[in-house]
């Protein structure tokens, strides 16, 4: 009996030894910072990576999407102004229509030699007939846009170089406005348009839906100055006849100092993404609570408000395993990197480009890409100094040399607030500076959410973007 107890005790001890031993060995803090590391190699092997992906798919939040080439607004033109319908990325039908639009776009962009310049009236005629209007948040270099939308490399010389406004007519024509010159180019795709027409016709239900009537600024003649008219609007601005109601949203600041445990876990997930080894770096806290991680080649700071800032001291980080073949690849890799940071912080935030990417910028050795959050289909303006964007990535020689990310996630609340109609909003905006303004040209007027760092609920409001202003 005594021998039996001894044996059982021994077996338990041996098992405990294995369990505790494996726990100790798998603790990252004990891993060597330099040279060969068996555990790092094991954790990085393709099989482990495969299981990690499965695990993240099963247990973590769904992967975030950084919308690099998604429009901020789609308007379904039914041929009747009364039943025009606007879709935001938060609308269910948005993705379906976007996929369909991409088919037409990729078909047109693959046959650039068939694009011909047409009068601007043709563009407007297409918008008053049955068509789909795609408005993108920024101006894209045409080659980059094609690359991001999955198209093959094409020669755009002699036609449009930058684009932001696209119309796909119900008869299969694609109209693209060159945003640098204003010239319209059109191409016939010869694709089957039945699916497109079906969607357009399903929205031709008239004013009974209770939606406000949507007119473009050119419809109403507000894009041309006449007599004493001092306000001119960009022709493609959609003007809603009535005000409407919009949901409020709440904000969570992932890396803010409020949840110390969560913050530590998130930071430990993020450090490897910047090629930083938690065991070899120096860590200290600044007076204001900013955590600073210093390595020989880079510094990473995490501010108490949840801002992540990386500055490389050398060539920076190569964002892809292979050498970049073009600046287009590096822009796409940037988006993947932003996604990976969001995933590490368990954020399901959606982002969109907020700065134009032109051909001249892409030719420079160093250029910066900025992204902003979109929540409930609308842009979010963060409550930061100097209108700082949510994400700012600087690429130098196709390597990331600086990165700044204000981590946030948003969720739509049940509370809805009324938003006044377009012209009232414009009146209110202009009246603040009216005594000084002689002429004003409005580029964009859209509803955004504006964050205040002291509040967790964001209220929608109109945002006026001015193209030109002449002051007395």
């Amino acid at each position, binding site marked *: 009996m005594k021998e039996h107890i001894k044996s059982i005790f021994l077996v338990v001890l041996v098992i405990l030894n294995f369990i505790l031993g494996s726990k100790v060995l798998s603790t990252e803090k004990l891993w060597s910072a330099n040279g060969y590391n068996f555990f790092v190699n094991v954790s990085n092997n393709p099989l482990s990576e495969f299981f990690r992906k499965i695990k993240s798919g099963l247990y973590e939040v769904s992967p975030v999407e950084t919308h690099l080439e998604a429009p901020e607004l789609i308007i379904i033109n039914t041929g009747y102004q*009364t039943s025009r319908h606007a879709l935001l990325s938060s609308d269910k039908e948005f993705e379906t229509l976007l996929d369909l639009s991409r088919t037409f776009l990729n078909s047109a962009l693959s046959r650039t030699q068939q694009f011909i310049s047409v009068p601007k009236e043709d563009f407007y005629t297409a918008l008053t007939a049955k068509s789909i209007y795609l408005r993108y948040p920024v101006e894209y270099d045409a080659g980059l846009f094609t690359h991001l939308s999955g198209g093959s490399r094409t020669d755009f010389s002699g036609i449009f170089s930058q684009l932001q406004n696209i119309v796909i007519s119900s008869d299969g024509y694609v109209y693209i406005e060159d945003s640098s010159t204003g010239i319209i180019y059109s191409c016939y795709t010869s694709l089957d348009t039945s699916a497109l027409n079906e969607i357009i016709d399903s929205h031709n239900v008239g*004013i009974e839906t209770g939606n406000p009537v949507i007119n473009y600024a050119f419809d109403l003649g507000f894009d041309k100055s006449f007599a*004493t008219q001092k306000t001119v609007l960009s022709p493609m601005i959609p*003007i809603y*006849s009535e005000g409407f109601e919009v949901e409020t949203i709440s904000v969570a600041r992932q890396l803010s100092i409020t949840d110390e445990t969560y913050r530590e876990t998130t930071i430990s997930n993020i450090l490897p993404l910047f090629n930083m080894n938690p065991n070899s770096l120096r860590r200290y806290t600044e007076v204001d609570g900013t955590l600073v991680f210093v390595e020989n080649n880079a510094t990473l700071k995490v501010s108490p408000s949840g801002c992540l800032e990386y500055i490389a001291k050398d060539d920076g980080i190569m964002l892809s395993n292979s050498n970049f073949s073009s600046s287009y690849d590096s822009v796409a890799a940037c988006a993947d990197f932003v996604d990976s940071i969001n995933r590490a912080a368990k954020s399901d935030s959606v982002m969109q480009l907020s700065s134009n990417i032109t051909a001249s910028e892409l030719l420079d050795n160093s250029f910066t890409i900025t992204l902003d959050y979109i929540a409930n289909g609308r842009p979010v303006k963060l409550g930061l100094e100097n209108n700082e964007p949510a994400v700012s990535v600087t690429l130098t020689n196709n390597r990331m040399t600086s990165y700044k990310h204000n981590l946030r996630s948003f969720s739509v609340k049940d509370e809805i607030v009324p938003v006044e109609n377009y*012209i009232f909003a414009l*009146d209110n905006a202009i009246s603040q500076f009216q005594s000084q303004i002689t002429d004003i040209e409005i580029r964009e007027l859209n509803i955004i959410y504006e964050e205040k760092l002291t509040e967790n609920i964001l209220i929608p409001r109109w945002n006026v973007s001015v193209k030109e202003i002449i002051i007395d």
Partner: protein
Amino acid sequence: MKFRIMSLILCFVLAFSLLIPSVCYADYGSTIPANASGNRTDIITIKRPESLSASTSDKTYTISATGAQGTKIKIYKLDKSADIGRLASSVRSIGASGLYSCVVDLNNDSNTFIVYAQNDSGSQVVNITINKIKKSTIDRLKSLTVTIKSFLG
């Protein structure tokens, strides 16, 4: 007596002088005479329809205009049987942007709207005719335009 007569005349003159602007800037309520006219032609500029007449197959039409801030605009729809215009939109003042737009319903084949604008300098009346036609007719007209353009091009 002479003083009384003089006072009475003075009162009449005063009353008449006060009446003149109110007649010129007559502010109409829920109706307006079909032949109403203002004393100015430069208070507002109708931007849509550009030629003060248009055709559409839509159920509504958006009338747009520009003018000085503070100008009050009312839109009446002409009731041909009564030869009178009935208020089709609530009164709205032009704001700091100087822009104005209003959606009106099109119930008949031929719709005449009387746009009445008023500010400190006087009033302006503009008649607008919107014809409602079938979509097929508009499509035929558009294809005709395209054909002509192709022929010329």
